[in-house]
């Protein structure tokens, strides 16, 4: 498969991924990952300095599912809408069945009594594999430029 087609496939993947989060279908989010999938939301400051700390740091499906369970059943936060804009998708390479790619993202947050604000501008650094012919994330590193997190980042990016 050529990288143009692959890019199209990754874009379709990202649009579905974003739609699940933006529409609040949180339980769908872990299904975009492999069983051993890794997910991290890390500041550009930490990434540039080679520091590993993330706002969110999930190793494997059980942690992804636990995070969603906690958000749905235990977490207290005010209602909000998320809206993702994903663009500039590039396939960087394919090796041993692992597709490396990057995309930019912008995450808008709207609280019920405030104007919409940009919560994060950032970049997905991804590794995909195909499981039963479908793309799954083996790893998604969300590297955000917006170093100062405004109040709280509740949902996955």
């Amino acid at each position, binding site marked *: 498969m050529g990288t143009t087609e692959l890019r199209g496939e990754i874009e379709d993947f990202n649009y579905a991924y974003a739609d699940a989060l933006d529409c609040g279908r949180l339980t769908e989010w872990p299904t975009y990952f492999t069983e051993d999938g890794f997910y991290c*939301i*890390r*500041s550009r*400051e*930490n990434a540039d*300095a080679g*520091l*590993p*700390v*993330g*706002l*969110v*740091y*999930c*190793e*494997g499906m*059980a*942690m992804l*599912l*636990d*995070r969603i*369970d*906690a958000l749905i*059943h*235990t*977490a*207290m*936060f*005010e209602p909000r809408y998320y809206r993702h804009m994903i663009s500039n998708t590039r396939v960087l390479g394919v090796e041993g069945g692992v597709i490396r790619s990057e995309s930019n993202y912008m995450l808008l947050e709207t609280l019920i009594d405030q104007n919409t604000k940009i919560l994060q501008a950032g970049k997905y650094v991804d590794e995909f594999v195909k499981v039963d012919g479908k793309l799954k994330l083996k790893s998604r590193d969300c590297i955000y430029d917006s*170093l*100062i*997190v*405004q*109040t*709280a*980042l*509740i949902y996955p990016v």
Partner: protein
Amino acid sequence: MDDAAPRLRNDTDFRWPEQGLQVIPDWIYTSEEILNRERERIFKGHVWNFVGLEAEIPKAGDFKRSHIGDIGVIVSRAEDGSIHVFENRCAHRGAEICRRHNGSNAEFVCPYHQWTYGLDGSLKAVPFRRGVGKKGGMPGDFKMEEHGLTRLSVTTHRGVIFASYASDMESIPEYLGAEVLKDFEATFDGRKLKILGYYRNLIPGNWKMYHENLKDPYHATLLHSYLVVFNLMVAGQKSTMTVDPTGRHGSMGSAKGDQVDETDTSQMRAYRSDMRLRDPRIVDFVKEFDSPWSVTMLTIWPNMIVQRELNTLGTRQIVPRGPNEFELNWTMFGYEGDDEAMTRHRLRQGNLMGPSGFLGLEDNEAIKFVQDGLRHSTPEHGTLALGGTEEGTTQHLITEAAIRSMYRHYRGVMEL
């Protein structure tokens, strides 16, 4: 309010209500004038302010941009290894000299007119000081040594750096008091720190609320359902809310138990016996501290939090941004001897804290709700009656004693 005539917003006489420490008036959270007094009397007063960790500036020339209250400072390590803290404000026109969170350099040069300072903040060079062709330049009596950056007193304890505008400060052990020092030294136990990364967070609330939240053991099992649902904290668990003799510092500690007492715990609305973590590693506790507590949250007056939540460790620096907002700068760390498995354990456990942490996000939200409530209502005062009038250290959770202790100290310093 008891008064017959309702007061206008901002029309406050700053007299503490007659109920004393049973109440907290709204205006200490919302007034610009109070914040100005806090800057002078607290942050620039007789305190040690937390400014950074030695592990962040290990080599000569390393620096970190930091804050004391809302005042910008630079923390710098000089050629001889000594640490210096000075205001991040050029002695010439006031420009911020350092615009990066951290880095390394041989000298500090103001980008505006290239006034140059040494690593200790002293003025080293002024371009065209003698003018050009005998014209212009600084007056003949201009003394370089009188125009350095504003320098502060500095001390360190177990790798933690503190600075003060006061020149007659006691040592850190004396400043913290024996009991809080003990919990401080359980985390900073002499092992070298390894920096794991930063969070930066803006919280729309008054800076003092952050202290209050960590001197308020009452909220832990009520706001944080996660603790209850996943069995991290249960009713009747061994715990402490330690307060130093001055009332300003605190240490909230608890020991993770193995048994759930279903009778008492069922009072907590969140408790569900049907929910289990699929990956319980996040709440594992690897014993590595000389302390009876698996969790301690230290509130070190006026601007530092030390987090030891099981094995996830960090400092938080509180930076007021006006009365209604503050910045929280988190530095997460482990120890130099940690193997990869231990580092990953700390990183996984980090999901509990920070602005996306299961507990951290709720604290931030709750503080925002309080500030919004104070700003969008008739000015009043909050109730602080839990545990009656008791103050100081308590061994139970259902009390606001430590908050009253803090405000007794605060009122003295602020003359309120």
